């Protein structure tokens, strides 16, 4: 019986090849998007699950406002290094605590040099204290985890790095010279261990963990702090909530003691809702809750939504085609019923048929996934694989679940309709029952088109916003400007200035690609205003090519500029005074009061993504009130042919710092990088919309064929009564056109709400445009009419005799 049913299913698929192909192909596409997303989710979920020991490991987070993009307090994984000792000494359940460098995006890594080989830049080389491997249970191929970091100047490397540098993993006792910045004389590290790459990705990823000795102690001066990551391993599983309660108590006490030592007032510092905070985050939750960045779960939300919709569109196609096709199968149902088949048996037969189709789709989907994965990996900067996935078993289980789900959801309704056919009416040749489920079919078509039209509108708005952003005046000249990843040093800068073609050499803490904000509160005419402070070298603003709105920018001619001049940006000027030039303001600290004079106002220039508003900022050259610096060395060329000049700069660099390769980025690249995320998102939306629109159209095409077929007799009668071909085509079009227009009306408000939300994510955005809405409607109507007309015309031109003589 089963075999026969399978045979019939196969013969039916073969008979309706085109529709089967649409069904199966569509489902395979929908499934592929879904499976790719599943792979990605599995990958992200698997972070920090490589050892059962990690269940008792916690990341310590502190609430503070350093290094934040908006100068507000956030829970951060970069914590004061003193927290390690605090946790170790005050929490009884602690087994081990370790301090380790946090990761910097801007950091290009350290230069690793083996003997006389060329130096190699390696990322994720982190400095830690001796307890790192007591907290993180890595598997050592060489060396001993107990003693690996016992003595300073030792280093533990991953297997892959050992192979890359030495060509073998038998490297115990060998030395590597590590150069941390360009003029660093370098430190010789002895390899004391080689660890295996764990099965799943790690939040505390590294290529090498070294112990320079810097992490062993905290700064002696109480006002100085170092920031690093702190991880603690507990004795078995403990209640995180309780742990956090004791952490906050310990933290407040420590803060009070520290403030008393510094003669500062604790209550004065923590006011206006500012609260002290220290907490522990379980290792398995760390990756899903990054500090300062958006969690992958939130990033993925729109994509999850889109791929579910895509899967729905293909499932709807499946349901629609199957129910429409059911007319053809009615006779079989009737006959089988009088031959003695139970309804349940028929239901199973038709479910088997949809199972057959979904298993073929699933097979196709696996092939598609394999084909798409390389570009998917490239696009999302991950390294996923299907067959070599460590969670292959889990994946297969998920696929089976998906298969069962799709089969049921796509197959159940049509099967149920079919198995319910009444044998008498069917065997009499009365197929009016084929009209069953027409309302549902219409609803499903509307639903499909709502999704497609929403996609089309979204593309339109996204395109306009992207155009707006990429053509937006940045407030600085991004051409002919590069940023070398290096600190600013006057003698080196002077040497570079001598190179012909170089116009300015400068540094700033605020430039696109690497902005670093320092909050400061100023007092102007007795009112206190929070602002962002940026330290620049004297010709940095010229180098950037900012636009001066009032007054002047810094220049060597003005001696005052190195004493107490400052320049505001437009946003800051709005907060302070419209005519700010020449005015003075103060910065008060516990002990001192510094006065500054405003000499100029510049137009706001962008230094972050367009989702963030430019902060009200003060630019200063003077050391008064403290300075900050970071690894930006701006080089402005006065020639278009910058390639040669860069070569000369590199030569100069190499002569001075042979152990540390130079790396730089052009400002145009930095700008593209800012736009990259959105571009990626838009490309994906475009891809998904094209798929969803074409699936919907295929579905409509197939459906209109069936409708035309079902109405053959009606069409024939109308023709006999004198209807023209055009009238017939219109007749068929009308029923679908109403659906498409209804879908448009529904999708307008939906698209409006979604897009509004998306646009609100940008500090700089276009007003909600009307054009995409109109265009989407016109486009959807035109293509729907074209699709239906092809079938309608076919039905219209057939000879009515053929249709009428039957029976």
């Amino acid at each position, binding site marked *: 019986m089963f075999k*026969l049913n399978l045979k019939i299913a196969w*013969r039916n698929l073969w008979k309706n090849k085109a529709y089967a192909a649409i069904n199966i192909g569509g489902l395979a596409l929908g499934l592929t998007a879904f499976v790719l997303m599943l792979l990605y989710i599995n990958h992200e979920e698997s972070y920090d699950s490589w050892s059962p020991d990690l269940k008792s490991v916690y990341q310590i987070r502190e609430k503070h406002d350093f290094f934040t993009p908006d100068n507000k307090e956030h829970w951060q994984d970069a914590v004061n290094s003193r927290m390690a000792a605090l946790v170790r000494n005050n929490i009884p359940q602690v087994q081990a605590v370790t301090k380790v460098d946090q990761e910097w995006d801007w950091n290009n890594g350290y230069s690793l040099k083996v003997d006389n080989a060329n130096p190699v830049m390696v990322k994720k080389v982190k400095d830690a204290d001796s307890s790192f491997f007591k907290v993180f249970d890595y598997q050592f191929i060489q060396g001993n985890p107990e003693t690996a970091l016992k003595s300073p100047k030792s280093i533990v490397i991953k297997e892959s790095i050992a192979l890359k540098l030495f060509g073998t993993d038998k490297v115990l006792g060998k030395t590597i010279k590590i150069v941390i910045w360009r003029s660093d004389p370098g430190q010789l590290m002895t390899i004391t261990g080689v660890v295996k790459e764990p099965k799943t990705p790690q939040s505390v990823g590294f290529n090498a963990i070294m112990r320079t000795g810097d992490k062993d102690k905290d700064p002696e001066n109480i006002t100085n702090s170092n920031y690093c990551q702190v991880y603690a391993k507990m004795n078995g599983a403990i209640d995180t909530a309780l742990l956090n309660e004791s952490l906050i108590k310990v933290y407040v006490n420590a803060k009070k003691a520290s403030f008393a030592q510094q003669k500062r007032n604790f209550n004065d510092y923590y006011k206006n809702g500012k609260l002290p905070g220290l907490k522990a985050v379980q290792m398995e939750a760390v990756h899903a809750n990054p500090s300062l960045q958006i969690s992958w779960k939130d990033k993925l939300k729109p994509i999850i939504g889109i791929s579910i919709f895509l899967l729905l569109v293909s499932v709807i196609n499946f349901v629609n085609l199957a129910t429409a096709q059911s007319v053809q199968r009615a*006779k079989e149902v*009737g006959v*089988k019923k*009088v*031959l*003695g088949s139970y309804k349940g048996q028929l239901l199973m037969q038709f479910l088997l048929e949809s199972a057959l189709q979904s298993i073929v789709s699933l097979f196709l989907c696996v092939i598609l996934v394999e084909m798409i994965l390389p570009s998917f990996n490239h696009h999302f900067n991950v390294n996923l694989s299907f067959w070599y996935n460590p969670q292959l078993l889990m994946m297969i289980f998920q696929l089976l679940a998906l298969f069962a789900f799709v089969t049921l959801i796509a197959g159940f309704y049509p099967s149920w309709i079919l198995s319910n056919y009444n044998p008498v009416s069917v065997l*009499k*040749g009365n197929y009016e029952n084929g009209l069953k489920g027409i309302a549902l079919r219409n609803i499903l078509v509307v639903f499909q088109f709502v999704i497609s039209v929403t996609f089309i509108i979204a593309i339109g708005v996204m395109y306009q916003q992207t155009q707006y952003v990429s053509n937006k005046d940045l407030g600085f000249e991004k051409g002919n400007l590069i940023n070398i990843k290096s600190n600013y040093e006057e003698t080196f800068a002077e040497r570079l200035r001598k190179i012909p073609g170089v116009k300015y050499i400068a540094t700033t803490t605020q430039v696109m690609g690497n902005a670093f904000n320092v909050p400061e509160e100023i007092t102007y005419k007795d009112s206190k205003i929070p602002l962002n402070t940026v330290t620049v070298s004297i010709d940095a603003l010229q180098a950037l090519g900012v636009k001066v709105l009032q007054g002047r920018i810094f220049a060597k001619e003005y001696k005052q500029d190195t004493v107490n001049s400052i320049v505001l940006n437009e946003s800051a000027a709005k907060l302070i005074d419209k005519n700010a030039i020449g005015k003075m303001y103060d910065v008060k600290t516990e002990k001192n009061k510094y006065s500054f004079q405003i000499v100029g106002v510049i137009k706001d220039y962008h230094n972050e993504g367009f989702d963030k508003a430019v902060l009200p900022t003060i630019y200063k050259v003077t050391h008064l009130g403290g300075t900050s610096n970071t690894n930006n060395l701006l080089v402005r060329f006065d020639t278009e042919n910058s390639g040669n000049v860069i070569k000369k700069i590199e030569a100069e660099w190499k002569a001075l710092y042979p152990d540390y390769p130079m790396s730089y980025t052009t400002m145009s690249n930095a700008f593209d990088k800012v736009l990259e995320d959105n571009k990626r998102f838009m490309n994906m939306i475009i891809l998904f919309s094209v798929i969803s629109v074409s699936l919907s159209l295929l579905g409509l095409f197939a459906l209109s064929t069936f409708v035309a077929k079902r109405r053959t007799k009606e069409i024939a009668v109308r023709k006999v009564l004198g209807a023209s071909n055009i009238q017939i085509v219109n007749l068929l079009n009308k029923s679908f056109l109403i659906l498409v227009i209804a879908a448009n009306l529904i999708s307008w408000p939906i698209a409006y709400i979604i897009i509004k939300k998306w646009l609100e994510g940008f500090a700089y955005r276009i007003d909600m445009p009307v054009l995409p809405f109109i265009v989407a409607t016109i486009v959807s109507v035109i293509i729907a009419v074209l699709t239906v007309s092809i079938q309608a015309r076919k039905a219209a031109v057939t000879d009515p005799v053929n249709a009428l003589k039957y029976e």
Partner: protein
Amino acid sequence: MIELKNIEKYYATKGIKNYVLRHVTTTIKQGEFVSIMGPSGAGKSTLLNILGMLEEPTYGVYEFLGEDVTSLNERKRIELYRNHIGFVFQAYHLIDEMTVYENIEAPLLYKKVGSSERASRIANLLDRFNIVAKKDLFPNQLSGGQQQLVGIARALAAQPSIILADEPTGNLQSAQAEEIMQLFQQLNKEDGITIIQVTHSEKNATYGNRILHLADGVVKDDVKI
């Protein structure tokens, strides 16, 4: 074998009863070959559908093999289909996606007949109807008469005690029709299968041994030949 007592069937439209069958009372014994005749709209097919339990009468009692089957549940009805009733249709109603062999095999599968028994029964039927060579063809590759032969073979496969045929020769040319009717006569006489057929043709009716004349839902005449 069949007892019909005061069978009535009507459809109510807007409160008006449209009678299709009125006061039909008759008995059909094992081994009879009954032809139901009458003009279009007389209720012939409805009567046959009621006999085949495809429709339920509005009033009246229907006993099949001594059992009241006026309103049966699906499971019991299907048991009767599997074991006692074979249907033959005017439009043959073979399943297009199945070969001749598979079409004949289908009722045996539902009846859960073992595979060797199945094979021998089908071989017998194919042999008897001279369609062995056609067993791997699909219905649309056969002529109308051949399709109806397969239809009858299918109806016989489950070895029913009664065959219900709704104008079995209505779509056939006269030579083929004659062949089919002779086959029915033979089945009735040699195998003792009860046959009830609906027909328009006087000639076809003469192959049987009893004719029920129906007009406007009422049995006008019950003639034994």
